């Protein structure tokens, strides 16, 4: 499946032939970038409009036409790396809108009631106080219904299933506070808690909205496996008829035509043709695999060289990709059992609040026999101990941490992922595509004379084999005229220059009869009339920052394990270059999961960093997982973190931010619980006036928020001391964005 098809599949149909595509552009940081990206995209034929959102680092492109414009290449030309951002959501998130509207209404109510309350507290006379209480009640009632229903609904849902959550004491406290204040207002009493009830809702809604924003990211970041599976394939019927059938209708025994550049739709056997398949995404093998009639091929592999005729051996739902999906679902069980810190805190805290309020009520009933007094004090206890700061403690830190990671090019899918990442004690890496870029590079270009290299480059330029591309990339452009260029799939490429016949490819094919012995990894050779001219040594490029990353993680005391599906020699070479001692090669997807399970059984919490299809089950089995943005879709869907910049330094960076976030969450818990413990005796003794309640609540919330924001200021200091790798081109210093 070509990139154009992928762009098309990731687009949303706006009707009347217009389509909308979302691209993620992590390198955009300034006004210059916005205009470069927008003009660059609009210049592509077929593009109607393009709009860059700098906050989300996303470009939204509207285009029309049969074939998708190559938007990624267009951005590459203006110097930005881009990724497809997944299928555009059809509608905006209705839940977020609901929360923000409730937040706005509660904020309006809280501010106005608070203003009225201030004058009551500063000693308004009886008549004025009475009027102000009535106005407060009139504002509070609609606010309570509108903003409070978010808590009521959640509390009711929990109660109906016979459970309790944090929303139950909130709902009871707020409703009782309002009802009792109304009762007191009717009886012309001095105290009313309208302000406490509504500002409580306001603070809690801030926390709730932030929490929702975190979870929401998770939803939009996930796009299905379907994008990688071809939607259909050309079936060759026995009577010679060709038909394009959807993948689900391909039956065992059907003959399929796979063009160059297409992915294999189902597991099959080659019937006709020779080619090479890119299996990197499926098995982690770095070298393309040559296939000939009789070779089995796996679904999801990419045909690189020549058209193939295949005979299907499995249906789509029994193919390799479906198997991966099943493994992933089975592996996810362990992670689903993880309970978020906030939930664990709430389940401990809610009963304490209920019991404290109930005991206070009973105590005051016994002591004074005045039910009105007893209820007032019990409500004060509920309000004072209400987990206002507790509700803000976690989401505020996680949103700040996510924002900081986002600025460093790391997408966080949800808050639970951050919590789990902070706990890891072992790091497992995949090789191909993760520690390495999965693209070979010519290592011995210096040993080859320039004219020979030019010939090799000219030949290589005619092929799309990864090895050819690596040679063509470093060859001088002065190309001698080639004649009779012929590509032999699985062997190499042949051409004539004048009288001489040149061959670039496998040594046993290019050089007459002799197997060439060389040092280093086996690579292609160039021959003239059957005589060896040069041999090329190719090696997979390490991902930028790989060495520093490994060192940083080892210094942090984290053991590192390399698990790969590639051949042992290739794995060992990479492990040696990076100084890794623990590694395993030729692992199937299931084997990787099994290894992780062994580690988990030893009580280790593993961070898995991988990219391929074969890593997807391991990514969902690990305690936490990261994947680069150019990974297979499934991998991106399974991982907790996706890093957009090519450098692997995102891994230690994310780990340190997650650990810092955990420290701040714990501090916040200590702060807000400490606060409540201090305020509880005052409330139980019945000394809490509405003024004290309002002060206590706001101060604890503000302290918690301020503490969470420290995560952000720490980032600023660090950003000025260490160079952060950016892909975007240098910008005039006057335009450099001030983080914030």
């Amino acid at each position: 499946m070509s990139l154009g098809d992928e762009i098309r599949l990731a687009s949303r149909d706006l009707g009347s032939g217009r389509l909308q595509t979302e691209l993620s552009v992590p390198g955009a940081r300034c006004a210059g970038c916005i205009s470069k990206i927008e003009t660059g995209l609009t210049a592509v034929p077929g593009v109607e409009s393009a709009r860059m959102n700098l906050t989300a680092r996303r470009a939204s492109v509207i285009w029309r036409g049969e074939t998708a414009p190559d938007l990624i290449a267009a951005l590459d030309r203006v110097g930005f790396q881009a990724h497809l951002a997944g299928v555009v959501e059809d509608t905006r998130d209705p839940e977020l809108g609901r929360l923000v509207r409730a937040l706005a209404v509660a904020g309006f109510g809280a501010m106005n009631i608070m203003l009225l309350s201030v004058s009551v507290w500063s000693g308004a006379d009886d008549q004025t106080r009475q009027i102000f209480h009535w106005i407060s009640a009139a504002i509070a009632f609609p606010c309570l219904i509108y903003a409070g229903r978010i808590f009521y609904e959640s509390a009711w849902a929990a109660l109906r299933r016979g459970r309790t959550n944090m929303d139950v004491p909130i709902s009871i406290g707020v409703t009782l506070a309002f009802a009792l204040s109304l009762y007191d207002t009717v009886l012309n009493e001095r105290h009313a808690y309208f302000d406490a009830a509504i500002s409580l809702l306001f603070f809690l809604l801030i926390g709730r909205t932030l929490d929702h924003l975190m979870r929401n990211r998770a939803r939009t970041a996930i796009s299905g496996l379907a994008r990688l599976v071809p939607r259909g394939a050309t079936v060759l019927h026995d009577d010679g008829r060709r038909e394009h059938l959807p993948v689900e209708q391909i039956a065992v025994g059907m003959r399929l035509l796979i063009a160059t550049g297409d992915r294999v739709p189902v597991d099959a056997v080659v019937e006709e043709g020779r080619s090479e398949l890119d299996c990197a995404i499926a098995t982690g093998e770095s070298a393309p695999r040559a296939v000939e009639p009789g070779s089995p091929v796996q679904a999801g592999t990419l045909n690189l060289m020549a058209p193939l005729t295949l005979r299907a051996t499995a249906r789509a739902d029994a193919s390799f990709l479906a198997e991966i999906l099943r493994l992933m679902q089975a592996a996810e069980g362990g992670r689903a059992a993880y309970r978020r810190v906030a939930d664990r805190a709430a389940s401990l805290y809610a009963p304490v609040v209920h019991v404290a309020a109930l005991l206070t009520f009973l105590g005051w009933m016994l002591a004074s026999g005045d039910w009105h007094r007893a209820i007032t004090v019990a409500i004060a206890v509920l309000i004072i101990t209400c987990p206002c700061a507790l509700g803000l403690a976690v989401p505020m830190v996680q949103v700040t941490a996510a924002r900081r990671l986002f600025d460093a090019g790391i997408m966080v899918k949800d808050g639970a992922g951050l919590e789990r990442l902070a706990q890891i004690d072992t790091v497992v890496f995949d090789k191909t595509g993760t520690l390495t870029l999965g693209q070979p590079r010519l290592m011995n270009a210096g040993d080859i004379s320039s004219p020979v290299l030019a010939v090799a480059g000219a030949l290589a330029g005619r092929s799309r084999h990864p090895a050819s591309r690596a040679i063509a990339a470093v060859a001088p452009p002065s190309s001698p005229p080639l004649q009779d260029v012929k590509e032999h799939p699985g062997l190499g490429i042949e051409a004539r220059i004048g009288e001489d016949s040149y061959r670039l490819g496998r040594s046993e094919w290019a050089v007459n009869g002799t197997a060439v012995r060389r040092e280093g990894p086996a690579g292609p050779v160039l021959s003239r009339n059957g005589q060896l001219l040069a041999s090329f040594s190719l090696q997979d490029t390490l991902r930028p920052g790989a060495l520093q990353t490994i060192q940083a993680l080892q210094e942090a005391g984290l053991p590192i394990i390399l698990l790969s599906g590639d051949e042992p020699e290739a794995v060992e070479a990479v492990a040696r270059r990076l100084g890794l001692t623990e590694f395993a090669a030729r692992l199937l997807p299931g084997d990787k999961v099994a290894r992780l399970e062994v580690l988990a059984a030893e009580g280790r919490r593993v961070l898995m960093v991988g990219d391929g299809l074969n890593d997807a089950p391991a990514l969902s089995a690990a305690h936490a997982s990261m994947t680069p943005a150019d990974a297979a879709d499934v991998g991106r869907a399974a991982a907790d973190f996706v890093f957009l910049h090519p450098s692997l330094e995102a891994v230690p960076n994310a780990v340190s931010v997650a650990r810092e976030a955990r420290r701040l969450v714990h501090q916040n818990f200590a702060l807000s619980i400490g606060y409540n413990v201090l305020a509880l005796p005052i409330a139980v003794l019945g000394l809490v006036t509405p003024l004290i309640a309002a002060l206590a609540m706001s101060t604890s919330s503000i302290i918690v928020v301020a503490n969470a924001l420290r995560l952000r200021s720490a980032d600023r200091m660090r950003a000025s001391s260490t160079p952060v790798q950016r892909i975007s081109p240098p910008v005039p210093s006057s335009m450099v964005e001030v983080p914030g």
Partner: protein
Amino acid sequence: MSSLVFLIPLALLLGGCALWAFLWSLRSGQYDDMEGAAHRILMDDDED
């Protein structure tokens, strides 16, 4: 006291206007790209 009769409704009305303005700006997407808006002001539209 008599001043309160019209001052309080006036205050509430102003507050209500602010609330409506916020909800309107939210709906019209003005908070979708806070950073971009700050940079777009620097762009010269006549250039292209």
